[in-house]
């Protein structure tokens, strides 16, 4: 494939992110033309999170969502597989399915009645015989199909036939995903439905924060949330940020996570009941046993993660999973859902769902303050000076010796911007390299130097 050329050349895109000096050109968050390129080059070629398998448990169950700004339908097939196709009729471009979710035997466009089966095949065109040319072929006019792959319950899709398979794309990030998805052989299931809300900010603020920003949580952003979760007889004077932990940057792909180490997991965040479930007892012991060959799971505390570009989640009982759907350079829709170990006791599932609403949701005591910060940043970036003065991304720059070999992959200190630099480096590559020949991860020829 070759890129459409615009005012942004490969060299000018490279100049936007300076990982050696640790500087970001703020226009990556505001420029309309860059945004249009993102839709093509990032969202048109990356594996994007759509939902969880258990959103569509039965054949004909569907969920409508987006890949970038393109509407898609995710449907459970008769054979148990999941298909994802463009939620757009090829006749005049109407959205084929207009409900958020449900069960269907077929989808009929409400404009002129073109009908599709649950696999997205065009099966009926009204007045076909009477009005269409004899060589009109329905099989040529089905909606575009996306590639679909599932990683331990999470459903991802990709428009690009040339992109590497999902496992290759996830690179060496999977052990960290497993801390949420693979604690039990039973896997996970979704609780409730998708919560959606609108934040007038660029999608990268949200995605990068969940990838690599424990810093905001340890400093000023979420003090009110800590107050909300404290027992009645304690106040903020007991709040001490944990200073021990790591962040992980994937070898390829700009995925990242961060986690605390050797700390109480924190009933402040998840409540005492869920905290206990995650730190002792049979479910914890099982998770420890399943994961200990990959990492000392039992030593990990609160954690955050992003799979590039816009899939983020919080393991360790917070268990919110979301896609930051881009809606222009200045707006996102957050589509968030909650997952839980499928074999967890019902009281844990119920409590985890309640705690999630209390903490990491539109009205959550943590998340409401993120919404405030990102909006204010986006407002300020309207200014000329705001757009031309670089933003600082230097934390952890050139700091050596923070890798912890007990954990898989390349790790650094929990308060670092190594992951942010990796996230934006991969963004630059996606935006500037038109061919997977250069972009795809190269076969591992050297072991990671510890």
């Amino acid at each position, binding site marked *: 494939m070759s890129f459409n050329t615009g005012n942004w050349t490969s060299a000018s895109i490279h100049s936007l992110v300076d990982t050696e000096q640790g500087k970001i050109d703020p226009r990556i968050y505001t420029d309309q033309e860059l945004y249009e390129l993102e839709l093509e080059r990032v969202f048109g070629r990356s594996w994007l999170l759509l939902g969880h398998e258990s959103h569509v448990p039965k054949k004909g169950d569907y969920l409508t969502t987006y890949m970038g700004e393109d509407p898609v339908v995710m449907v459970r097939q008769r054979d148990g597989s999941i298909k994802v196709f463009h939620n757009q009729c090829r006749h005049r471009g109407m959205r084929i399915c207009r409900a958020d979710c*449900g069960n269907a035997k077929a989808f009929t466009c409400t404009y002129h009645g073109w009908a599709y089966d649950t696999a997205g095949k065009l099966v009926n065109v009204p007045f076909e015989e009477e009005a269409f040319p004899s060589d009109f072929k329905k099989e040529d006019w089905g909606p575009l199909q996306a590639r679909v792959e599932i990683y331990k319950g999470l459903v991802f899709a990709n428009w690009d036939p040339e992109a590497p398979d999902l496992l290759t794309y996830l690179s060496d990030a999977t052990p960290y995903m497993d801390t949420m998805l693979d604690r039990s052989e039973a896997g996970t299931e979704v609780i409730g439905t998708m919560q959606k809300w609108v934040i007038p900010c660029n999608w990268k603020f949200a995605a990068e924060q969940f990838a690599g920003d424990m810093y905001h949580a340890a400093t000023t952003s979420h003090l009110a949330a800590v107050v909300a979760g404290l027992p009645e007889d304690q106040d903020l004077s007991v709040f001490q940020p944990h200073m021990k932990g790591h962040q992980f940057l994937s070898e390829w792909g700009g995925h990242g996570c961060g986690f605390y180490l050797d700390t109480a997991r924190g009933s402040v965040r998840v409540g005492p009941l869920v905290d206990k479930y995650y730190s002792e007892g049979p479910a914890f012991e099982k998770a420890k046993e399943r994961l200990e060959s990959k990492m000392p799971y039992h030593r990990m505390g609160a954690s955050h993660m992003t799979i590039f570009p816009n899939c983020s989640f919080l393991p360790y009982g917070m268990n919110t999973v979301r896609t930051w759907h881009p809606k222009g350079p200045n707006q996102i829709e957050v589509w968030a859902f909650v997952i839980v170990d499928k074999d967890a006791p019902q009281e844990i599932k*119920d409590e985890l*769902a309640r705690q999630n609403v*209390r903490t990491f949701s539109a009205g959550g005591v943590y998340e409401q303050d993120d919404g405030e910060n990102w909006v204010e940043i986006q407002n300020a970036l309207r200014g000329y000076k705001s757009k031309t003065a670089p933003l600082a991304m230097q934390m952890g720059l050139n700091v050596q010796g923070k890798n912890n070999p007990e954990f898989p992959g390349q790790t650094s200190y929990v308060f670092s911007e190594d992951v942010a630099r990796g996230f934006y480096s991969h963004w630059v590559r996606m935006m500037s390299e038109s061919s997977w020949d250069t972009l795809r991860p190269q076969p591992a020829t050297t072991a990671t130097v510890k």
Partner: protein
Amino acid sequence: MEVKELVKPFKWADSSPSLELQHEIEQFYYKEAQLLDHSEFEAWLGLMDKDIHYWMPIRMNRLGREMAQEYTAIGQGGHYDDTYETMRGRIRARVSGVNWAENPVSRTRHLISNVMINETEEPNTYEVVSSFIVYRNRSENQADIFPGERRDVLRRSEGGLGFKIARRTILIDQSTLLSNNLSVFF
């Protein structure tokens, strides 16, 4: 409450409540709105009974034949799904001075109307439906409008404002929340 009941109209009684009861409950709601619109959040928490379930289910776009499943069921999360204890935590956060979503403080206006009251088998306990429009204006130019309906269970109480809120189910007239957060109370 079955979630499919939320789709249907409030089941009003055949006979109207007394003018006095109607007046008392409307006055209670107006006073409650005053507390919320003037940042008296701890006093507002005082209106909750200790067994309150404060719940705002998520509302989905559904085809007509599946409208019975428009709302998420109880226990399946929501926009709010709170007990007295978690509401206490929320209010503590709100008055902490570090709840940046509401500091600087928003300007809100709670308009409450369409109040209908059913007496229940429990003495001094009422099922009440009301409509609301909550307007929030914050910072320099942010404006949010949250319209919807509240289905409450109120209990008459000694002292205070005369009633306690034992249940509040909030049906918001939005599927995707059109605001950057939900840091207002209803």
